[in-house]
């Protein structure tokens, strides 16, 4: 009495296989509520009771076979040929863009964080004392001329206390009702502020912030970004500064780039240096195929200033210059970034022009 069930089962399986070959399998046709298997299973009631157990086994086997075949099929779905043209362009999701300065800042932060620097943020509108005086730049000193300073239109509360090079904290803002308010011309106001925050070394600081100078042309905007590094501890030497600069140059521009320091003068460092990076185009030779390198003209790019922290600055920050030494460096973010290969942006005003055509390239 099992034969009819067996032969019908065989038929169903054969049919399924044919459908599979054609690639148009509708599984409900076999396994759905009103599917062929259900119909087959219902036939069990025509089977005499003594054979039902056997029939049940058979039917179960059929079900397994059907299910396995269907499952296998679902795992390797067949794609109808020619229905999708693979040369059709993709549909990109709408994405925006990070500003190039953010990208530069992130990269710079990462590089210094890896060697233990802590990123900080300090005022952009700050007392003259932090921006100049604590940095060994007395009022009206010619060294201040380089910094085309914006002043905030507010009364100067400095009063009568005379500037004293030996005791720079005499005119600390907390003692003179602030003093004169300026827009930070550099990120170096963070130096004494960080010494005041940590009170004692070790200090490894990176400060990246907006700076302001009263100048405007293709290579200067009234606002720009700088990053400032400061390291203070026992036994910090020029060698550590050189090593740190070289490490940055290689990480930021590539392993073949070198850095060098040359003498310079800043009131807040002694010795002071100008920092150059070798040109990645000509490899520091100044020549490409026997001709003058168009990017650097001399083999090197001047990127910024550095130096060993001046003892007066340490004193201003309440740190004993006989115990500790340190170094500091500060450069423009825009300039540092545009020296990367392929980013020769000749007009830095573009960074603040915010044209979509510019931004979307980054």
């Amino acid at each position, binding site marked *: 009495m099992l034969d009819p069930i067996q032969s019908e089962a065989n038929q169903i399986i054969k049919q399924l296989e044919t459908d599979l070959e054609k690639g148009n399998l509708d599984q409900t046709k076999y396994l759905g509520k009103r599917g062929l298997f259900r119909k087959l299973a219902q036939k069990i009631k025509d089977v005499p009771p003594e054979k039902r157990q056997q029939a049940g086994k058979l039917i179960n086997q059929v079900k397994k076979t059907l299910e396995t075949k269907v499952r296998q099929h679902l795992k390797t779905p067949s794609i109808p040929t020619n229905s999708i043209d693979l040369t059709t362009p993709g549909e990109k999701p709408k994405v925006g863009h*990070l500003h190039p300065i953010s990208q530069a800042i992130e990269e710079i932060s990462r590089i210094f964080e890896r060697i233990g620097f*802590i990123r900080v943020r300090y*005022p*952009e509108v700050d007392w003259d004392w932090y921006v100049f005086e604590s940095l060994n730049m007395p009022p009206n000193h010619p060294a201040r001329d380089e910094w085309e300073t*914006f*002043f905030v239109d507010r009364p100067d509360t400095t009063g009568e206390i005379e500037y004293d090079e030996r005791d720079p904290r005499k005119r600390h803002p907390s003692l003179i009702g602030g003093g004169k308010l300026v827009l930070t011309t550099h990120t170096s106001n963070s130096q004494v502020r960080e010494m005041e*925050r940590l009170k004692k070394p070790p200090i490894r600081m990176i400060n990246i912030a907006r700076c302001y100078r009263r100048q405007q042309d293709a290579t200067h905007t009234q606002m720009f970004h700088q990053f400032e590094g400061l390291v203070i501890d026992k036994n910090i030497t020029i060698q550590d500064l050189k090593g740190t600069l070289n490490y940055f140059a290689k990480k930021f521009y590539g392993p073949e780039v070198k850095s060098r320091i040359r003498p310079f003068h800043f009131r807040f460092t002694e010795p002071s240096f100008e920092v150059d990076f070798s040109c990645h185009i000509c490899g520091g030779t100044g020549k490409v195929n026997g001709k003058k390198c168009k990017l650097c003209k001399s083999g090197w790019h001047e990127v910024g200033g550095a130096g060993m922290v001046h003892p007066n600055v340490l004193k201003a920050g309440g740190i004993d210059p006989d115990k500790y030494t340190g170094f500091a460096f500060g450069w423009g973010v825009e300039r540092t970034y545009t020296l990367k290969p392929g980013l020769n942006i000749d007009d830095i005003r573009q960074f*603040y022009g915010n044209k*979509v055509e510019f931004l979307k390239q980054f």
Partner: protein
Amino acid sequence: MNILIPHTWLLEHLKTKATPKQIRTQLSLSGPSVERIEEREGEEVYDIEITTNRVDVMSVRGVAQEAAVILDNAGIEAELKPLKLPKLTELKPHRPTKSLPKITNQPKHIKRIMTVVLSGINTTATPAWMARRLKQIDQNVHWAAIDITNYITHELGHPCHAFDYDKIMALGGEIIVDEAKKGERFETLDGETYQAVGGEIVFRAKDGTIIDLPAIKGTANTAVDENTQNILFWIENMDAKKVRFASMTHDIRTVAAQLNEKHVDPYLAEPTLALGIKLYQEIVGAQVASQVHDEFPSKKEPQQVKVPLKVFERYLGLKLETAVIIKILSRLGCQVKQAGQDLLITPPTYRQHDLKIPADFVEEVARIYGYHNLPDKIMGGPLPLKRPDNDTFDLEEKIRHFLADVGLYEVYTYSLVSEKLALESGFPLESHLKLANPLTDDKVYLRRSLLPSLNQVIATNPTHKDLKVFELAKVYHPKGNKTERPEEVMILALSFRAGYRKARGIIEALFDRLFIYEYDFVLDEDQNKAKIVAKKESRLVELGSISLVSYQLRSTQDNKDWLVNAQIDLNSLAQVIHKHPRYQKLPKTSPVIEDLTFAIPKKVRVGEVIKAIKQTSPLIQEVRLKDIYKDRYTFTIYYLDQKENLSDKDIIPLRKKIITHLTYDFDCKLIGQMAS
């Protein structure tokens, strides 16, 4: 300050076979930076940046002196040539002699005066060789009697001046050093008139007339002109601060002022006077007509500095032989004595303002030794661990990346804004910090809101019809107390040229990403603005706001659009975010999901309706607005019981409750038939 030095002029002071290129390289590595070599008048001219501390190098002689040491140390033979000048003590005045004017000095202001009368001045043209050099260094060529003073200043680095001797004598024959009084007028030799602010050092004639602005610029009433027959060749060494004060106050930035404000060496006066006499004799046929007058009341000898030898090691990280250190310093003109473990160093007179502390001498030794000869390393030692309290850098980075990834453009706009943008902030103009010395009209105020700047960015990109931008930057709020610094607050600002739902959705998605669980947009009295709030424990923190603004997108009057603006205070945001989610066990049951559509009257706020649906039962897990068509709003409602699967039996009463609530309390009307 940059200085131009023609190569052949340099070679008059420097004996070397070094090529201009070698000179450039070596000077830049160990001394002043040679920025370029230019071809001028058929010759190489160095353009050299001299730092403000090295006024002793701001001359041809000064560069030669520096180059001699640097080149020699680099293994290129070089030597400073001696100056060949007449000996002042051997000068015999030519008869008939002329009497010097009576000079009344104030020694605290003028440290040294050297002067001599030169007679028989002809209006000779400047000789071609001198004119060529003056042109090479960007100086105007007048005639010899004047040009000689400029030439000498450039050659030796000490400014000098030629008065018309007869004009001085006609004014009473006196030179009185004095401070100007407020309001006094004087006319400089180029015809500009100035009014003194008081305290400028001036020279007066007997009757009080100002006859010179010393160390800065001459005045018209004593200037050399084409009729001048006798000159008073004059050198003064004035207090640098006083020079700086008058020069900056009146913005008279002559070469003389720029040198004199930096402590020119008073000992340079002698060779300067001698060179002046020599050149006036040779070029214009002048004769010495008086004794040389020299008063040097405040002679200051350089101070000896004690420098422990270990300081060099402390900075350089290596031990140099003492002999090497002494050799370098001696070559640079220092007198060095060793006393045990210390060096006693006396700098030369021309560097006494520059070499004062041990670190200054370290720099001298290190640069000549060569920075490139020092190894590189990265410091060891303990790392600082205490981070600043206001550290939101990670949060900012997360926000930036998320917003850029979902289609927004990050922009950087100026913190300084115009009056127009300041006003658009909604804060009164006078409540902004204002610059005392703005450079341009569009950057005068420190902004109190980023939004006007962002809206301007959208306006400058009119063709990008669905532009969405954001910026993370500070705003600056002045404090009532004028002796406090302004408050600087980090803000995330967003401006969308997009529908409200899209804009708000981006903010909501951002909040989800930052694991902020309970936040809300609370309508303000102004119907076009809502507060953004979030819960921190049991209290509500106000994060910022979202608003609709109409905005002029192009220059034409009628082309207005509306934008969605939002701003969020970073520090407040930092209080309500979480760095990781609150994990919830995966549900064992499945939600029942259904859509309900209601017609909602205009006066009713859809936000309130959604809240009402949610509050119907704790079994309503989520309500989403699926669609809006005219006044019809379709909501997708998720019913979920964590314990067991809900059946129709559970849902029907809930649904009824929702419908009743919305119908009676909100005047809404259910659309379509619901299966019972």
